[in-house]
């Protein structure tokens, strides 16, 4: 029986670019390049490894985002995913995590799945709550923040390294999994993979395909409101000294002046 894996990925503004907010206090996507969130590459990698271990598996990558978000899907397809689903709708602009998770949950149900895999957090919002919310919405177990993951005989197993303990987890499929950057280095797309990705199917869905009303999502439908976003003032230039043999002592003097010692 085929194992259906859906990987949720996000198209995010490049963290090395000059990221800022637009006038409506949503993330400005026009002035900075976007790309597949680095943390989602680990999710794609684990999905591909699980698929390689399974007798018969299919990896679908799913994203919610504007036209450009197709770039994130193409990257995942060039890594080796089989097909992609892109939810795109003008009414989605400004949707927060509750709305996005609603859209993802409906798209996942429509696509069909045995396991959903996501990264531990996006590199723009960095909330890290989406996988747990998806599990709640889909009514399936969450097996999240895994640094190791495997699926065998309809059971997902993994290791979760927490603040105070490391735990071995186990759940029956269907389930929602999230993986950390410790789960294993993500592969680079090969030239062959990049060429093959161009021929792979990308299904487009809009809100009406998912039976979602416009007022359930978007900036107006958000469950949260951003009232202000201010750029942090540049730090005032600090003191920089060159070590001529007394650097450690000079630093100790500074720490003492600040009452740290």
């Amino acid at each position, binding site marked *: 029986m085929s194992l259906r894996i859906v990987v949720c990925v996000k198209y995010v503004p490049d963290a090395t670019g000059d990221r800022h907010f637009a006038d409506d206090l949503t993330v400005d996507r026009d002035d900075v390049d976007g790309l597949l969130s680095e943390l989602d590459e680990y999710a794609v990698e684990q999905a591909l490894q699980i698929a390689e271990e399974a007798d018969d598996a299919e990896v679908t990558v799913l994203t919610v985002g504007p036209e450009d978000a197709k770039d994130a899907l193409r990257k995942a397809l060039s890594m080796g995913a089989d097909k992609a689903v892109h939810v795109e709708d003008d009414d989605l602009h400004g949707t927060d995590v509750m709305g996005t998770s609603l859209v993802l949950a409906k798209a996942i149900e429509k696509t069909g799945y045995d396991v959903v895999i996501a990264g531990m957090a996006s590199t723009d919002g960095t909330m*890290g709550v989406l996988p747990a919310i998806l599990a709640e919405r889909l009514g399936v177990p969450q*097996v999240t923040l895994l640094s190791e993951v495997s699926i065998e005989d309809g059971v997902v197993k993994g290791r979760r390294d927490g603040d105070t303990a490391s*735990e071995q987890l186990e759940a029956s499929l269907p389930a929602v999994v999230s993986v*950390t950057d410790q789960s294993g280095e993500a592969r680079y797309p090969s030239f062959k993979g990049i060429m093959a990705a161009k021929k792979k199917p990308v299904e487009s869905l809009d809100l009406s395909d998912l039976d979602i009303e416009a007022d359930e999502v978007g900036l107006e439908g958000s469950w949260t409101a951003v*009232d202000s976003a201010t750029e942090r003032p540049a730090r005032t230039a600090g003191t920089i000294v060159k070590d001529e043999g007394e*650097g450690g002592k000079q630093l100790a003097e500074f720490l003492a002046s600040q009452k740290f010692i």
Partner: protein
Amino acid sequence: MAEILVYVDHVDGAVRKPTLELLTLARRIGEPVAVALGNGAADTAAVLAEHGAVKVLTADAPEFAEYLVVPKVDALQAAYEAVSPAAVLVPSSAEGKEIAARLAVRIGSGIITDAVDLEAGDEGPVATQSAFAASFTTKSRVSKGTPVITVKPNSAPVEAAPAAGAVETLAVSFSEKAQGTKIVARTPRESTGRPELTEAAIVVSGGRGVNGAENFAIIEALADSLGAAVGASRAAVDAGWYPHSNQVGQTGKSVSPQLYIASGISGAIQHRAGMQTSKTIVAINKDAEAPIFELVDYGVVGDLFDVVPQLTEEVKSRKG
């Protein structure tokens, strides 16, 4: 006065510091009612009362230790229904955020994560957050339902404010899904005797420039002289020199101590995202062009193998 539900993060009854900070913030917007779950829950009452909890709701059951997250969500929801609070506050640990998020879905509320400050506003609590590697500060509120907000460690001072702290047992009936994810084994993290990274007032971190696992001993020695936690950059963790649990940065832990000392760390955006809100930043690096120097209050351009041991000795002698 409106009641504010505060989720208690504790280890076998020992309340972790971020929860006490949360009580300080909760008092700005109402009267804190604490919810403590699992082994030792009842033992948390005295310290919670001392810090302002008017009531402490406790529950213990094997489910909390045997299954992941959902039993705690069931219990927090039971507390929510019993109290009808004006807001729910949860510490921003990995598990705390997951518990808060699932509760928010269930009660039809919005969620704000990783707040670094909280104040009362006309339309409910207003949360301050850092965005884009701390290059922006935003103020946000929950606009639908009862605000569910998670708060980062070191966001408020711990203040004593004795309150009644009446202990009540919370009745919890677990949902069908509570046993979905079984915890089949748990290995407690070995204590290093140093403060917890995210809670520490001082953090000393090492990066690529430390050049080997064995050399982290000099970073640890400096940390110990200052009573600090030890952090590591992603480069140092990826090289296998220090455990991932100590990684500071976007994919590791985000820290906001009073003092952050970066040794042999260039200051890539990934690292800055995790430490830029530190109050005082100090860096030691051979490369005068390293981007970390743009952030520092005090920087030493020099070899960390010379500077760090000298600093450690100086700290020790000054502390006597």
